[in-house]
C-alpha cells in the first residue's frame, strides 16, 4: 500500500551469523536505502541483529488461510517421510 509515506516494506533480521533471517515487522520508506536505514533504526536499536533484509511488501506472495486445508493436505498422509516410520534392528546403533 503506497501513500504519502512511501510504499510498505517487510523487514527480516538475522540475529547471529549462521541463523535464519526472521520476519520482524514492516515499515514505510521511499527507496531501498531508506528502507534499510529505517529498518536498522526501528528494529535493531538494541543489538537485535547482525544483518537485515528488506523487501517491498507488494513482492511478497502469500498462501491464503482459506485454502489452508487443501493447500497443505498433500503432506498429511505421508508419514513415510519421517524417520520414525522405519524399523531399524535393535542391533544397529547410531542410525
Amino acid at each position: 500500500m503506497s501513500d504519502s509515506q512511501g510504499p510498505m516494506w517487510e523487514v527480516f533480521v538475522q540475529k547471529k551469523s549462521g541463523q535464519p533471517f526472521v520476519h520482524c515487522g514492516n515499515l514505510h520508506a521511499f527507496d531501498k536505502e531508506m528502507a534499510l536505514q529505517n529498518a536498522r533504526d526501528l528494529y535493531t536499536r538494541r543489538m537485535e541483529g547482525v544483518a537485515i533484509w528488506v523487501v517491498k511488501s507488494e513482492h511478497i506472495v502469500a498462501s491464503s488461510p482459506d485454502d489452508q486445508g487443501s493447500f497443505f493436505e498433500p503432506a498429511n498422509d505421508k508419514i513415510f517421510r519421517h524417520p520414525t516410520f522405519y524399523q531399524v534392528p535393535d542391533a544397529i546403533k547410531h542410525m
Partner: protein
Amino acid sequence: MSTYNFEEIFESKLAKNEMIEPKDWMPENYRKHLIRQISQHAHSEIVGMLPEGNWITRAPSLRSKIVLLAKVQDEGGHGLYLYTAAESLGISRDEMLDALHTSKAKYSSIFNYPTLTWADVAAIGWLVDGAAIMNQVMLQRTSYGPYSRAMIRICKEESFHQRQGYEAMTRLAFGTPKQKEMAQDALNRFWFPTLMMFGPPDKESPNSDNAVKWRIKRETNDELRQRFVNQTVSQIEYLGLQLPDAKIKWNEAKNGYDFSEPNWVEFKNVINGNGPCNKERLNARVSAHKNGEWVRAAATAYAKKLENETIAA
C-alpha cells in the same frame, strides 16, 4: 463442495486461543474495533513524545538527557510498529494521520496534561509508562496476530521506561526538601490522570464488552486500574511521599486497596478536546506533518529517479 461458515471458524479460533491473522475472515465490527483501538494506541505513542520532548534540552544532566532521548525515540518506534499493525487491517497511514489531525481519532488523554517541572518527566516514566505497561502486558495475548507481535516487541523495550522514571523520582524524593516537594507535586498532579488511562469504569465503558468477548482485551478497565493501584502504593511509600488520595486504604476482603474514583467529568472534557494542552499537542502534530511535506515530495521524486535509472540501465 463444502460451504464454510466463516463466523463459526472465527469463533472457534478464538475459543482455541488461536490468533486471527490479516488474511483471515473476521467480522466487520472486529476489524473496526481493532482499527480504532490500534490507531489510537499508535497516535498515543506519537503524541506522547511531545510532553517529554519538551524537556530534552533542559534535562538536568548528560546522563538523563541521553536516557530521555532514547526513551522518546522508542515511543516513536512504538507508534510505527502500531501503525503498520493497523495498516494490515486495510486502513492507510494517510487515513489514520488525517483522522488524528482532524480530531476524528483520539489518543490517550494523559498527554494533554503539561510537563511543568523535571519531576513531571520522572512521574510520566514511573506512573504513565507503568500504567501503559499494565495494559500492554495484557495486550501481548490479544487475539489479532500483528497487534500481539507489536505488543511483545513494545513490552520488551518498555520496561526501561518505567525504571528510569522511578530512578529519577527516587533522586528527587531523597534529594533536597525543594526537590522532594517537586516530586510530591508531580505525583499529586499525575495520579488521577494516570488512573484515567485505563478508561471509563466498566459499567460505563462502551467498547469493553465486545473487546473481551473477542479476546482483544482480556481484562476490564477496572481490573487493570485496581492492579495498578495495588502495585503502585508501596512504590509511593518507599519514596517517602504522601499518598495522593486520602481514601487509599488496604481492604483485606478484596485483597486490594480502596481508592477514590478519578473525576470522570474531567476525563470526558479532556478526551473531547478541552484539556490543558489539547490544542498545543494537535498543532504540533499538524505542523510537523505540514512542514515535512517537502521532504516527502523530495523523497518520492528521488525514488522515482532511481527507478528510472534502473530501467534505463
